[in-house]
């Protein structure tokens, strides 16, 4: 019987035995991400193991490195919450001096990247360290029990953005860290999603192969934080792409005039000009994404808030140079 080659290496760096929740999208992001990284190292340096990881405090750290156990089969170091980028800078500098070939992978959650770690991230990118920074974006501080971050989307419930008589939930639009990273004019910036694993793997490999810094913001589900059933974890992130909530794009060398947009799927109509995506007509309303998750439940009693969210999505796409139309659900 012919055995099909697996689509990605069977080598594991994020090994079974970690303590993440069933259905954790971020665990998927780390598992696939490190596999892709390893493939890139093999292709670039002839050594699949030619990398080390520096990771920030957060959910993915505490579920993977509980003394005396570890889920990591790659050299891995955790220092603190806000300094994965700075620690990675040090590791990279040491490797340079040791004459070790390979690349450093820095990993942080949205809190450890978009908020408290922003300064260290900017410094690392600006200094041009040979590091890929992977921001796994579960859109809140999950490790401390679901508090909002600057990456929490508008309208979302968290324990510090509770909906109430005077509150709609999170009342600020999401901060797009990928665009801030791209402003450093680094070789490679991308957004990705565990809802589109092939695209994520491709981007991770590309990031790992560039010389110099790269940044990937990957959206991944948090089951308790988003209040989604574990079995819907991947489906919900796919819906984020298909409804326009999560744009997938790449920016190389900070060239904002040449943002590469990935077509969203889900029946969306894509209009191009000279190969470039200029307009997208989404077919699935954002409500399809929202309704799978408890964190947006309260919005359905306040339809004007969903309209507000639609406006924000359009604004984000506009920054990316794309005109979008977002449908409302059929009555």
């Amino acid at each position, binding site marked *: 019987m012919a055995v099909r080659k697996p689509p990605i290496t069977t080598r594991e760096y994020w090994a079974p035995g970690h303590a993440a929740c069933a259905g954790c999208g971020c665990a998927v992001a780390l598992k696939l991400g490190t596999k892709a990284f390893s493939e890139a190292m093999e292709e670039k340096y002839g050594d699949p193991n030619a990398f080390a990881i520096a990771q920030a405090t957060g959910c993915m750290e505490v579920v993977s490195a*509980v003394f005396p156990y570890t889920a990591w089969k790659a050299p891995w170091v955790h220092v603190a919450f*806000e300094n994965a980028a700075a620690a990675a800078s040090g*590791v990279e500098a040491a490797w340079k*001096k040791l004459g070790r070939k390979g690349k450093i992978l820095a990993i942080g959650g949205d809190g450890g990247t978009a908020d408290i770690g922003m300064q260290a991230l900017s410094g690392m990118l600006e200094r041009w360290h040979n590091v890929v920074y992977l921001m796994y974006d579960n859109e809140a501080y999950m490790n401390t029990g679901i508090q909002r971050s600057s990456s929490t989307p508008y309208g979302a419930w968290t324990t510090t953005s509770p909906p109430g008589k005077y509150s709609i939930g999170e009342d600020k639009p999401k901060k797009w860290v990928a665009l801030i990273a791209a402003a450093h004019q680094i070789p490679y910036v991308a957004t990705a999603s565990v809802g589109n694993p092939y695209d994520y793997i491709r981007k991770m490999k590309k990031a790992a192969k560039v010389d110099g810094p790269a940044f990937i913001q990957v959206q991944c589900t948090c089951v308790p934080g988003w209040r989604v059933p574990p079995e819907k974890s991947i489906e919900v992130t796919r819906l984020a792409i298909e409804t326009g909530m999560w744009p997938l794009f790449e920016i190389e060398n900070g060239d904002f005039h040449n943002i590469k947009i990935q077509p969203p799927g889900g029946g969306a109509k894509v209009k191009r000009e000279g190969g470039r995506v200029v307009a997208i007509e989404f077919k699935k309303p954002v409500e399809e994404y929202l309704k799978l998750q408890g964190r947006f439940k309260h919005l359905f009693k306040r339809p004007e808030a969903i309209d507000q969210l639609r406006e924000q999505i359009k604004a984000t796409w506009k920054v990316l140079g794309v005109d979008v139309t977002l449908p409302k659900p059929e009555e």
Partner: protein
Amino acid sequence: MPVRKVMKANEAAAWAARLAKPKVIAAFPITPSTLVPEKISEFVANGELDAEFIKVESEHSAISACVGASAAGVRTFTATASQGLALMHEILFIAAGMRLPIVVAVGNRSLSAPINIWNDWQDSISERDTGWLQFYAENNQEALDLILIAFKVAEDERVLLPAMVGFDAFILTHTVEPVEIPDQEAVDEFLGEYVPKHAYLDPAKPITQGTLAFPAHYMEARYTVWEANENAKKVIDEVFAEFEKRFGRKYQKIEEYRTDDAEIILVTMGSLAGTVKEYVDHLREKGVKVGAAKLTVYRPFPTEEVRELAKKAKVLALLEKNVTFSVGGALFQDFSRALINESEKPRIVDFILGLGGRDVTFRDLDEVMDISKRALAGEEFDEVNWIGLRKEVL
């Protein structure tokens, strides 16, 4: 052959770093230690030091990068002071807990507010519970020597703890003195190459560093830091002895000066020790039975040596450029702790002085002596005394 050059303590620290050959240096400027990274970047630019110099965007990232580099298995160094050291605070615990032998040069400076760039010891004293070893230099030569010694002690397998070496803002950082720069070969022989067995990020033998520990293991991890601090006491003596053999300069955890037959001993650290020794000479000429003692090592705290010192005097006068609220100075607490269960103990009088760069003059020391003499005579005395306070501006 060693050469003698006239230089500031900041340059001496940069020279120490150059001689120790760290592979990674990450630093951020702050007065008064700015010259250290400047000088190091010159060494690197001229090919005199073969290191990666990371021009980080903050002290927090400086120490974080040092932790990353040290975890990857290389010798690392940085320099800072005051607010910069305070910004590192969180990561100082982490460096000690991860047992990474990073060395930091500290140009001892006061802490805000009010903002003040001059000397006292509050910055490094405030970090006394991080697990770091602490050395204090009396002069520029000591600044250079103690950094080399700090590397050797920190990297000893019985220790494996980070170390900071303090030297007083401006009084040393910006003042030139003749300094003997040891031979590179001699330093190479003294320090050897750093080859860690516990910290490395090698894909050939992947390990996980900086883990989470549940209550079942956390306390043990803290205990090993405690134990390593205890071990460092012996290691420091050994390294001091070896340093003396190789380079001819003698160091002791507590250096005594004219303490034989002294009734009152003035105890201090850093550059103030120089002033105090001169003051002792001055009083000895008048027949006053007074001596001086200098703490070269503050962490690990030299408890045994303090007990020995205490046997020699009826009054220990502690001269401190730092404050521990409700207590006095940190040394007062440390000395009291060291002596509390001794059956015979001297009276301890604490003096807070010289904060924020205020000069400590002989007149101030006369005041110290007056109070100490009262204590010696069995009269009432205040345990904590602020010397040189300008009451008119209060």
